[in-house]
């Protein structure tokens, strides 16, 4: 069975693209080693989209019409994923987005699925953590100015206000920013109880380090964007300690697949696995679950929709909702002594419901 | 002092200078005259090293310098007053003059020379700090000459010096060039203003279509009416 895959393997987004590719490759290996899907081995066909929507679209045609893949997986960001999704839907091939967060992706059509948690859901979980668990009253919010940050912040602010907290400071900053001292300086004046900062690991490392440098010691809440060992490596002098993040990957999980994944990944690629690679791994697992019930688009689709507590996934996948989003508990991890550790699990179904 | 042997230069398919041989003796002033496009500038530029000849050789006192880069030629005492008052436009008059003396290390020598040059062109002292690109046409010519003199040249290559200079200055400059003889400077001067230049030159070559068609002492050329008629258009 051929599975198509695209991700940015060159250009500024190459780091995430490579992680995604590695995760997907590992899943293929895992599945084939344990006998494949209904006895059929899987084959991954991948192309580099260079974070260019035009290339993502032409790849979609290539994968479907020349390579005849049965299902495609996006290891790319939102813009490319969304642009390609339209083509897959049009050509009648199911597509799974590994970690792109744009809320519209799954709305493209009935063949488009997502593995990562919907950003607004994760934002709500963050608010739940801040207000219900940590008891914050005054919250400062930093938003990275793309769809990821914007969606998270939207979910967060709605939920936080609903739970009775006050947003005392809110600002946007551009992707790739390294200089937060000015923003943090201003933020400090507003005396927040916690900071909710949407970021990827590179920006996150700067934020936590520069905050400590400026003498800001309130808890910082992050999300899956932080979920990379690189975050801890890049934030100097242990400044990442005590950071809380809401994510899908529980490294302390007792599930055997999780430990196998973390160990094999490290062995094979010489670098620790991150959230992106875990998502891509799971996307392949979801695809395999779909293929189990058949190879026509409709059969695959039904297969995915009928998933119940997927055992072979690294993150917890309970089931798919009718809008083709995952329903799963969200784990809160905390950085302690330079390592991510389990802190709490959020299971409140109202917070987690993607259909809300 | 300066010897050019069988030099040919072409730009792509156009032959600008064809098999030209000339020599300039020590402390001599030699003129190259000829119509527009005869190849005078090309020849001068080749001697200075702006253009590399396809054929032929160039010597300074028995050293072959044919295809040395200009800065090495400058070390042999060559200096140029280029066509059209080509000065460093974005630099000040002062910077231009100091660049003329780029190879001179002795500060007092530079200062003395500077004074000498100012005597010749008082305007340059007045405009010491002006950006050279905003000088008037004639002022640029003055600066170009002054800059060349600043380098204490042994062989001075001059291209079309009278262009754009007022009559009074043409006379003065010609006199100044003449007086270089006594200061141990050898001069090769390309010029359209035949009358003026033949007054100060010792010898002259006549160029036409890239060839040397005639040569002789300045007096000979001045008095030979046939030559004047057919080549110099006087």
């Amino acid at each position, binding site marked *: 069975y051929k599975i198509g895959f695209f991700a940015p393997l060159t250009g500024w987004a190459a780091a995430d693209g490579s992680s995604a590719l590695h995760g997907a490759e590992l899943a293929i290996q895992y599945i084939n080693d344990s006998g494949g899907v209904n006895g059929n081995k899987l084959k991954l066909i991948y192309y580099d989209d260079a974070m260019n929507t035009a290339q993502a679209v032409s790849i979609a045609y290539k994968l479907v019409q020349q390579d005849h893949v049965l299902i495609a997986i996006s290891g790319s960001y939102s813009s490319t994923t969304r642009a390609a999704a339209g083509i897959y839907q049009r050509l009648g091939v199911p597509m799974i987005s590994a970690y792109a967060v744009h809320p519209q992706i799954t709305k493209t059509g009935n063949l488009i699925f997502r593995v990562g948690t919907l950003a607004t859901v994760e934002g709500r979980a963050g608010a739940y953590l801040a207000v219900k668990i940590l008891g914050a009253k005054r919250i400062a919010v930093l938003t990275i100015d793309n769809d990821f940050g914007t969606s998270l912040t939207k979910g967060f602010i709605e939920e936080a206000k609903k739970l009775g907290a006050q947003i005392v400071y809110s600002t946007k900053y551009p992707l790739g920013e390294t200089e937060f001292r000015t923003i943090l300086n201003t933020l400090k004046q507003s005396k927040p109880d916690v900071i909710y900062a949407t970021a990827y690991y590179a920006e996150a490392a700067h934020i936590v380090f520069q905050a400590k440098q400026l003498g800001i010691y309130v808890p910082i809440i992050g999300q899956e964007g932080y979920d990379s060992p690189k975050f801890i490596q890049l934030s100097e002098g242990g400044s990442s300690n005590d950071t809380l993040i809401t994510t899908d990957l529980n490294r302390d999980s007792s599930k055997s697949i999780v430990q196998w994944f973390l160990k094999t990944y490290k062995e094979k690629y010489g670098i620790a696995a991150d959230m992106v690679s875990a998502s891509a791994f799971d996307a392949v697992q979801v695809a395999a679950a779909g293929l189990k019930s058949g190879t026509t688009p409709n059969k695959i689709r039904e297969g995915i929709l009928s998933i119940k507590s997927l055992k072979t996934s690294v993150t917890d996948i309970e089931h798919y909702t009718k809008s083709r989003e995952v329903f799963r508990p969200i784990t809160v991890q905390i950085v302690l002594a330079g390592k991510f550790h389990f802190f709490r699990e959020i299971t409140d179904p109202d917070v987690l419901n993607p259909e809300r | 002092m300066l010897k050019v042997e069988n030099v040919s230069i072409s730009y792509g398919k*156009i032959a600008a200078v064809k098999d030209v041989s000339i020599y300039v003796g020590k402390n001599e002033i030699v003129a190259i*005259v*000829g*119509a*527009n*496009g005869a190849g005078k500038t090309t020849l001068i530029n080749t001697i200075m090293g702006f253009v590399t000849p396809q054929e032929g050789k160039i010597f300074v006192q028995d050293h072959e310098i044919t295809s040395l880069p200009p800065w090495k030629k400058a070390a042999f005492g060559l200096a140029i007053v280029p066509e*059209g008052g080509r000065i460093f436009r974005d630099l000040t008059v002062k910077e231009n003059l100091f660049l003329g003396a780029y190879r001179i290390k002795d500060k007092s020598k530079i200062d003395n020379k500077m004074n000498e040059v100012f005597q010749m062109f008082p*305007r340059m002292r007045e405009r010491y700090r002006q950006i050279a690109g*905003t*000088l*008037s*046409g*004639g*002022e640029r*010519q*003055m600066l170009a000459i002054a800059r060349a003199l600043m380098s204490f040249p042994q062989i001075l290559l001059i291209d*079309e010096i009278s*262009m*754009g*200079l*007022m*009559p*009074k*200055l*043409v*006379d*003065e400059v010609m006199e100044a060039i003449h007086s270089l003889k006594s200061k141990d400077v050898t001069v090769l001067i390309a010029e*359209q*203003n*035949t*009358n003026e230049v033949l007054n100060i030159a010792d010898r002259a070559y006549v160029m036409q279509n890239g060839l040397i068609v005639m040569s002789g002492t300045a007096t000979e050329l001045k008095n030979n009416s046939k030559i004047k008629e057919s080549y*110099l*258009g*006087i």
Partner: protein
Amino acid sequence: MIELQKIMKIDRVTKHFGGLIAVNSVSFEILKGELLALIGPNGAGKTTLFNLITGVFKPSIGKIFFDGKEISGKRTSQIARMGIGRTFQIVRPFGKMTVLENVLVPLGKSFYTNLSVFSHSPRENSSISKAMELLKDAYLDDEFDKMASYLPIGMQRRLEIARALALEPKLLLLDEPAAGLNEKESMQLKEYIEKINSNGISILLIEHDMKFVMNIAKRIVVLDHGSKIAEGVPSEVASNPQVIEAYLGRKHKKGDKNA
């Protein structure tokens, strides 16, 4: 009473560059059909005056009238369209165009102000033959398909004049057209300019070649340090002690005999 018609009137025009007064309250007039020469030492302000007339610079003080209308403050292209053609002291033909194309540029004069630039082609036969005619007058017809920047300087000068003439100007400003030409070529140029002038085009000419000027000019205006120091017929000017002192130099005392 017959009033001599003036094509241009320059009225107390002054131009400063920072602290430097390049042109200092200069006034003079050019008559219709006249060939007036403007001379003066290097840096006297002659080229600056051209730039003031053509609108490249704006006068700091003073006014310039052309054909009865004030032109100071107008854009260069407007002034050119009103009928003033010019050449540049340092030649600037359109170097990457051919000689012919250079002359075709001004022939589009009447199209450049409206949308007919989109409908008229420079390749129309009438334009080409007109251009070739102008080139012929300038003895450039043999070179029509050469790149302008490859021409020797004398030809570039004539090309600039031909290009300016294609505007059908009433007044032509020539900035040192004879510089860098040998005597044969200057004679040729002189004929060319005289022919232009005899067609009724007024000419204002800057030139340092005294033989050339004295031969061709009907009247001369002399500038020095930005101010007008003399004005008159050639012989008058050439014997003016101030002009000799500042400009001609003593040797040229005999020059006035030539004139």
